[in-house]
């Protein structure tokens, strides 16, 4: 796990200190700018840059809710990203279990095809996908285009290849004896999956869920074409602050912060799982 307990040489310690200090600066400056600018009056952010606000104000945090329907975008993003994550994880668990525990014809075709979709430039299938959704809508009456459902479907497939691939790795690392035992105890394969394999693979599943959520939460291209006013997500909706008249930088920063906090907090809370999940799943 860790290196031998011998004391690191000075050169190592010094270079570490310098490197990590510089890196911390690089990482934190934009974060600081985001936080401090969100507390500045408009004059501060449209004039010469200043490190400290001339006066502290919480107005941007109040204004953001009325300049654009931020609350609605927020709810949309939560629904879309949440649903996409849950579906993506469940589907990935099924697929990964099949690939990890069974031999069947077409297994390789499946994994290679699914993984290769990771290569597709989004722009290539944006318009076709849009046409498919519209046609499905016309044929069956299920509104995919412009609805949250369509977006959920799209986003969950974005994270699916990586999720499946990672969970295959993780499931492979869960000893087969465990599901053997469960099968012996009278569980079916699905019982074994949910009672034994899934609990043992929680870190991997959390890692996959975090990834899926982030993918859906930040996507711009498809959301800009596939949503309308009622279904718009945050990633697109935030552009509303750069309006016709003025760029409300302080509000943009405040809103960016508000939409970032849930993801960043969740991410940091789950980071332990994330490292553990990646360790067993992705990098083995």
């Amino acid at each position: 796990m860790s290196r031998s307990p011998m004391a690191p040489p000075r050169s190592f310690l010094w270079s570490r200190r310098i490197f990590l200090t510089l890196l911390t600066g690089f990482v934190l400056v934009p974060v600081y700018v985001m936080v401090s600018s969100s507390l500045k009056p408009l004059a501060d952010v449209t004039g010469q840059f200043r490190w400290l606000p001339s006066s502290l104000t919480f107005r941007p945090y109040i204004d953001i809710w009325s300049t654009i329907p931020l609350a609605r975008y927020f709810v949309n993003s939560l629904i879309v990203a949440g649903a996409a994550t849950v579906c993506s994880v469940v589907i990935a668990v099924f697929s990964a279990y099949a690939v990890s525990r069974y031999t069947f014809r077409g297994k390789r075709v499946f994994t290679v095809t699914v993984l290769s979709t990771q290569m597709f430039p989004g722009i290539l299938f944006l318009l076709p996908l849009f046409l498919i959704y519209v046609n499905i809508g016309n044929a069956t009456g299920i509104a995919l285009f412009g609805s949250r459902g369509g977006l959920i479907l799209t986003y969950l497939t974005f994270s699916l290849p990586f999720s499946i691939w990672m969970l295959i790795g993780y499931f492979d690392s869960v000893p087969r004896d465990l599901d053997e035992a469960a099968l012996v105890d009278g569980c079916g394969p699905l019982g074994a999956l949910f009672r034994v394999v899934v609990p043992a693979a929680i870190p991997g599943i959390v890692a996959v869920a975090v990834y899926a959520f982030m993918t859906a939460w930040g996507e711009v291209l498809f959301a800009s074409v596939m949503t309308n006013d009622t279904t718009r997500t945050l990633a697109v909706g935030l552009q509303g602050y750069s309006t016709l008249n003025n760029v409300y930088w302080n509000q943009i920063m405040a809103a960016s912060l508000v939409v970032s906090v849930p993801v960043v907090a969740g991410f940091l809370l789950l980071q332990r799982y994330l490292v553990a999940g990646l360790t067993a799943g992705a990098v083995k």
Partner: protein
Amino acid sequence: MRRIRAAAAGAVTVSMLTAVTACGGGSSTGGGSNDSPKTLTYWASNQGASIEVDKKVLQPELDKFEKQTGIKVKLEVVPWSDLLNRILTATTSGQGPDVLNIGNTWSASLQATGALLPWDAKNFDKIGGKDRFVDSALGSTGAQGKDPAAVPLYSMAYALYYNKKMFADAGISNPPATWDELIADGKKLSKGGKWGLGAEGSNVSENIHHAFVFAKQHGADFFTADGKPDFTNSGVVAAVKQYVDLMAKDKIIAPGNAEYAQNQSVSDFAKGKNAMLLWQSASANLTSQGMKADAYGIAPVPVQSGTPGTGTNVNSMVAGINLAVFKNTDNLDGATKFVKFMTSDGEQKILNTAYSSIPPVKAAQADTTFNTSANAVLKDTLAGSAAALPQVADESQFETTVGTAVKDLFADAAAGRAVTTASVKAKLEKAQQQMPKK
């Protein structure tokens, strides 16, 4: 080897599946119908200070319409950054609004897609006849010789906005009427961190609007009479160079303006950082930024010499918003009624006042509300010295390619690189070659 075989097998499966599904592409519904006579969807462009402001302006009017006709209008205000994409995807899929706003310069481009209802004499009669509208506004509703693809809704024109106090401080008594005067004044004003003129160097549409007017003043056009792009004729090159030179040679535009694309130059003007601004109907905009109406004056955009007029003395594009109906609407009668409502004298007065634009409807324009000195300049410009941008199918590509060329030239100027006739021509040449081949 196995991997390749697997991938090949996958590809075959997929293409077989697609052969089945791909046939259904495109929209099949052609003409309009009246299947759902009780509702309409309306996409409005973002005209006010924000989308929320627009909703507040429009909703009461839509309620009025519902009371009159019993038709409920579902409003969506679409930001400019999304509008063209949304229209395109709606066109591709046939899944769009019933009635929508389009930038009037897009009229011919969108007309070419065949997705919009043509406004022939019969349709015009339903909304009170074509002659209710001002001619210059009708000139920007589609290609010549074809039935208009849209109906004018709001008209706007460029004017020169100038800061009265800064002019007085610099000892300038009258706003400039020619470019030479503007440059001379600008040089007097450009000092101490303040600048003579503001510009939106990275805003492709703004660039096009100015390049177009300068070209007109050089007696040149971007398109030949039969609609072929002709961006490199000497008049156009001189025109673009003259515009960029305001920053490059005359140095009356702050270099920082080269990266402006979100109307920062209007903010700068409101804050007194720029003494002059060439803008369309900026009053409401300036008010919302805290600039009082008596702090600035409005004059016609300068010309090369003489006074604004036609021909080489054109000093504005015909700016504005048109109202179009999607051909495959399922409430054709309702859509027509709605257009009639929005272009009625009463609504025109209300809406154009709210957006500080000029009504393209003659009767409404004559109303006293639009007789202020500010509006007088805009009205005169629209009536006498504004020209419509080329009404060709490739207009939107023209905006992008030439607008980007001007943006690049501004970037050169800002970085201190020389902007020469040759470099301007090279950029325009490249823009022209990127236009669709006929």
